[in-house]
């Protein structure tokens, strides 16, 4: 029996069933379609500017490896005229990054791209090993997560690069949409659907004279519409070297739950991943106070919050909690809110949201003390006001960004030789943050 011919060229035998639409294609046609779609994403959103220097956030994993390979191909084929470099972050955990950094080094050589590896040590003055030594194993997830979120931007600033691209794919975006519906977070839902997640408009005004400022870094995800399965197929058939690690920890419960749903949806209807992304973009426009023109559907739209403050996919947000506690905590918290409303015994208390913004919510006081609150019983969707961290200049919803707050705590307790004078923070709050209890509730004085 002769194999089926490729649906596109009708000449070669089909070798790949496209996960996106189940069409049967030959290898060259699959490569071509996959690359052309990413080209389409880049051009239709005016993502790149000629002469731009762009850092690819490279972890050695499949997404960033495929991103680097495809961008190199497209830059040559369509003459984007951009300079691509690789930027890797080394957390400073002995032995941990060895394999993946080797992978990145090999890729750099293969693609002829400049590679910079920046360690937490250079960026923050601390390696993760040193952090663990200082704070113990319990709270260090918070540090690594917060540091990692800013690391690419800080690294790019060090290199004088204004644009960082990451390997987030359609599955990641779809997952984030469902996750934020499940935890009731519309602002985050609308932000994470944009393809570009910084404010180019503020670039010019914020600090044109300081090339090292990392508030000006544009973040984007050219693989936003690419299916994870197709990324894997592309890497496989192109024989790309990537380092695949399975995270040994379960992702936080909401993300895990959303991820499982996405996988099931994909089996029932392959277009569902793309359809969720589309819904997310459309819903972003319906969010109260939304000023997003098109949720990323056109090139001009960007989100006002740096992606580095978001949890954007991956397993990097479990904070050492067990997977169930996050949903259980939120459920309990919401139930208390409901009961409080029912009983009309409402007392205003101050709620420290997961993003650090303070919000007033109504709550019954007695049960709440000392209890970890779940993320988001928000009465109304609050619009966050972004300012700059007064220590490092990073875009932050608080006066001092999370990384600086954590660093301050670390530096304060650094044995003898190195003492930094802190600004007038309230240590109690930060200690709570350090302990990974960012979501603690306190009964306010008012």
């Amino acid at each position, binding site marked *: 029996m002769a194999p089926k011919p490729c649906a596109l060229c009708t000449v070669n035998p089909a070798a790949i069933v496209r996960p996106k639409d189940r069409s049967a294609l030959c290898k060259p046609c699959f490569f071509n379609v996959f690359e*052309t*779609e990413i080209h*389409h*994403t880049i051009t239709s959103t005016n993502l790149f500017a000629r002469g731009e220097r762009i850092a690819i956030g490279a972890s050695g*994993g*499949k997404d960033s490896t495929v991103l680097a390979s495809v961008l190199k191909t497209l830059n040559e084929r369509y003459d984007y005229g951009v300079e691509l470099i690789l930027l890797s972050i080394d957390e400073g955990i002995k032995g*941990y990054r060895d394999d993946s950094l080797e992978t990145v080094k090999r890729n750099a050589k293969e693609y002829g791209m400049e590679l910079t590896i920046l360690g937490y040590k250079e960026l923050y003055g601390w390696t993760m090993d040193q952090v663990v030594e200082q704070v113990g*194993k*319990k709270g*260090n997830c*918070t540090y*690594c997560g917060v540091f990692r979120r800013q690391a690419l931007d800080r690294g790019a600033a060090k290199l004088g690069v204004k644009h960082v691209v990451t390997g987030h794919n*359609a599955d990641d975006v779809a997952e984030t949409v469902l996750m934020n*519906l*499940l*935890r*009731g977070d519309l602002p985050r839902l609308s932000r994470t659907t944009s393809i570009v997640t910084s404010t180019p408009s503020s670039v010019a005004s914020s600090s044109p004279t300081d090339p090292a400022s990392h508030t000006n870094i544009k973040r984007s995800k050219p693989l*936003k*519409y690419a299916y994870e399965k197709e990324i*894997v197929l592309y890497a496989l058939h192109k024989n790309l070297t990537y380092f695949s690690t*399975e*995270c040994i*920890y379960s992702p936080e419960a909401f993300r*895990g739950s959303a*991820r*499982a*749903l996405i996988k*099931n949806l994909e089996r*029932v*209807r392959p277009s*569902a991943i*793309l*359809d*969720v992304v*589309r*819904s*997310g*973009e459309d*819903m972003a426009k*319906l*969010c*109260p106070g939304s000023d997003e023109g098109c949720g990323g559907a056109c090139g001009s739209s960007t989100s006002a919050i740096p992606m580095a403050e978001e949890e954007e*996919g*991956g*397993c*990097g947000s479990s*904070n*050492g909690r067990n997977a*169930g*506690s996050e*949903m259980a905590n*939120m*459920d*309990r*918290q*919401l*139930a208390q*809110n*409901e009961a409080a409303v029912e009983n009309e015994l409402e007392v205003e208390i101050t709620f420290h949201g997961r993003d650090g913004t303070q919000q007033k919510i109504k709550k019954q006081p007695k049960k709440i003390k000392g209890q970890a609150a779940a993320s988001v*019983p928000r009465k109304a969707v609050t619009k966050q006001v972004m300012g700059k961290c007064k220590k490092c200049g990073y875009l932050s919803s608080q006066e001092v960004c999370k990384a600086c707050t954590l660093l301050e705590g670390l530096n304060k307790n650094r044995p003898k030789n190195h003492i930094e004078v802190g600004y007038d923070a309230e240590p109690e709050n930060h200690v709570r943050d350090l302990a990974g209890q960012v979501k603690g509730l306190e009964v306010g004085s008012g």
Partner: protein
Amino acid sequence: MAWRCTLHLRNHLNALITHFHLQPRFTFHNKMPGKHVDQALEQPCRRCKDVSAVLVVRSEPLCRECFFKYVHTKAIKRLESFRVRNANPNHQRTLLLPLSFGVSSVSLLHILDRQLKTQMSKTGRTGFAIHVVHIQIPGDESIITVDELLSKAKEAYPDFKYTSLALHDVFRLTSDATLNDLCPKTNHSETASPPEKLAALINSLTSATARADVLSTLSTRLTVEHAKTSGCEGILWGDTTTKLAEKTLSETAKGRGFSLPWQISDGESPHGVTFNYPMRDVLKKELVSYVDLVGSPVSDLICEPSAIRQASMSSKNTTIDDLMSKYFEEVETNFPSIVSNVVRTTGKLEAVSAPASAPRCDLCSMPVSDGRFGIHGWGGDQQESAERIAIASGPQLCYGCSRSIPQPSK
């Protein structure tokens, strides 16, 4: 080691999770009304403190009467604007209740009957009148049972006016011809009867998800059309919190995020009648207990194909709606407040104000205010624009409906 979890490692594709992530370790069995009797019996009702509780509702042990009051109050609170004092004595307000013989619509029927009787006994008149409509969907093999159920309902609640419609009536009742244009053309298209049209349309669809989607969309349209032609100012949908949460996620998954505010909010709909969801604050599992405890006549009117549905979960016939209903069944058991929060959150989405002249989808009739019909012309669309122009002449379908009824592109 614990800190590894924050390193940015992506799951390899091989680690595809094929089942739901909600593991038994976070179950709280004591919150399930279904398992009420054993635990609740020992304690007194927390509200009246008089009788012993028969079940635990949102961690409150309640007796039978207090539980009924709890359910009734939640529903009636949603109908504030239909109180007697708001009624114009010269003009009876009429509302349409679509009755599917599921737990929710039957419970709502019962509660409304009680409410109208209460109004009558207190004031000598009622705030509104109810028309009941049942829509027969092809594939429900139990038409005989339906007739039986309808006559039982009339007997138990004789104050309402009842109508039974077949889904294909939608081709007869809808005023615009566009719906007919969606049916595949055959030799005798011109003379095809409504049942033939419906069968041709459904048979042309290639997936279970598409068939279920089109059937329920048509059913909504027929309900709306019937409401208008029978002089009802609004529709009282039976959807529970759980159902609305399911709808939120499944419509999101079907690419209808744009129309969510119109699909799950109380008030003015884009269809010219109001949509009301009196059961929106009651969980599905609570209504199941309610039906259990009320017993006859409510329980005699229930005909839900839930058991059959479950059996086919892993098969090719699974639909996106099935997937979401299975999912929220689990979430509701373990984290009921998260279910309510999904609905509350979606309720904050602001509907685009759509002028009557806004272009509408030929199938679901939702306004597509930016005129972005079809699956093309957005960031996730990788086709070139030539195709888009070719389509402009055919039926105009919103993104979600285009996924269910793909249009030939050339």
